[in-house]
């Protein structure tokens, strides 16, 4: 292959993987079932791992392979598994309570994608095309994660929203060529996430309340069981 064609492939594969991560976000919005959401999250993690590995390859930044491996093992496999266990053990409703309807959320999500493109693209005129688009897509993943946290009330789904937000950040970090401390940051995030999962488990152990719906926490009156 000619160098230019190879460069084209570098670019389009990176673009493809980033777009897949974004697609994962939308898949999460689309879900009405908890398990479906976990699958969508796992899909996003796989896409993220692919994106990180690809960036590691084209930037020749070997530490990014660590980030890719962490995304794959931790977020792609371990966390969805842990979440399934939590949902089963805690007897959480298998369906997702949506505060804002799915259609509306999707439309808002599209708006956020457009917004982040409009925010990021003009200000990064100097950067490489891969970086710019990666950053724009990453910002939309971050914002959609926020949207999930706002529009899906259950604590587990909020956690997923947060983790997808974090996926967006990792996506942003890997896209910026030569960014130092990437691995450290992904480790820091991993700690954060481990913490959340632990927190969910922990709630169950204490059995102080019988719903993880944050709404219940706010208006809890007396024992329900």
């Amino acid at each position: 292959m000619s160098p230019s064609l190879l460069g084209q492939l570098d670019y389009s594969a990176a673009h493809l993987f980033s777009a897949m991560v974004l697609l994962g976000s939308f898949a999460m919005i689309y879900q009405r079932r908890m398990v479906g959401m976990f699958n969508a999250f796992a899909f996003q993690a796989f896409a993220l791992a692919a994106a990180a590995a690809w960036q590691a390859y084209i930037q020749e930044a070997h530490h990014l392979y660590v980030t890719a491996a962490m995304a794959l093992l931790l977020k792609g496999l371990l966390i969805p598994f842990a979440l399934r266990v939590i949902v089963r053990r805690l007897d959480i409703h298998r369906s997702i309570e949506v505060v804002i309807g799915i259609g509306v959320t999707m439309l808002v999500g599209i708006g956020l994608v457009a917004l982040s493109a409009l925010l990021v693209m003009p200000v990064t005129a100097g950067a490489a095309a891969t970086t710019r688009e990666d950053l724009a897509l990453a910002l939309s993943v971050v914002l959609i994660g926020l949207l999930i946290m706002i529009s899906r009330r259950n604590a587990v789904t909020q956690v997923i929203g947060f983790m997808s937000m974090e996926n967006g950040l990792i996506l942003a970090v890997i896209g910026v060529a030569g960014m130092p401390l990437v691995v450290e940051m992904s480790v820091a995030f991993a700690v954060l996430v481990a913490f959340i999962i632990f927190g969910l488990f922990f709630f169950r152990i204490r059995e102080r309340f019988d719903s993880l719906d944050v709404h219940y926490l706010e208006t809890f009156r007396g024992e329900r069981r």
Partner: protein
Amino acid sequence: MTAALLQVAQIALVVLLAPLMTGLVRLIKARLLGRRGPPLLQPYRDLTRLLRKDAVLAANASWLFRAAPYFVFALTWLAASLVPGVTAVLALAPTADLIALIAILASARFLLALAGMDVGTSFGGIGSSREMLIAALAEPAMLMVTFTVALVAKSTSLSEIARFIIGGGVGLEVSLALALMAVLMVAIAENGRVPVDNPATHLELTMVHEAMVLEYSGRHLAMIEAASMLKLLTYASMIACIFVPWGMAVEATPHALLLGLVTYVAKLAAAAVLLAVFETSIAKMRVFRVAEFLGGALMLSLIATIVRLMSEGL
């Protein structure tokens, strides 16, 4: 001259192949479900049987009810023959525009929906209203897909798009991948396939398309059945033409045409197999979920457009 000949051949070919494709889908579905299933040529027999029978009309059926099946069939046939399948060298190629295609299919559907309501039975009405709901969501998605494809290929003409893609104008293009997913979802909805509608159902509450055409019989029904078979073929050819055009003859040499025919039939067969596998592996969704399903298609096509615009550097 060759283009005109090829166009005539194309018109004949689609109407011959359409029942075969439907038959293949039914056969594979049956096999996957562990049944022996009808023979491959059963749809042809069904159609000729229906054509021989008398049509039974409701007492209050208007001329629209009687005329609609023929118009629907004609429009769908026209749409099917516009889509380049074997070759891009067609006399009607300049008119084979994606937007025009969508419009032709939409008018066929509009007629059918009107006819569904004509007799005034509740099923016809419910079928029509659901069909229009689906259309209202599917068409914007389809137009966004068109827009994305046009951004990539710089044309909305199907033969131009096919030439552009065959010419290696695009590498790995995300927006096209997203558009493909969107168009697949639209195609499933438009053709009344499983997660959206069940073509084989007789459970009134879940019917969409079948409810709309419940009052039809005899040759009218044959027209409508043939039209829906043609529609399936149209969508399959259109997807093949935009996303996997390789093998299509761009020049009218005998060798290229032969290759084009073989690949075209192979693509249709592959589409039939995939559709059958997909339909058997999934359950029909509730009607209110359909809006979300198509909303998903719309969303995908919108993302595709945005991503494409992003690549163009805004």
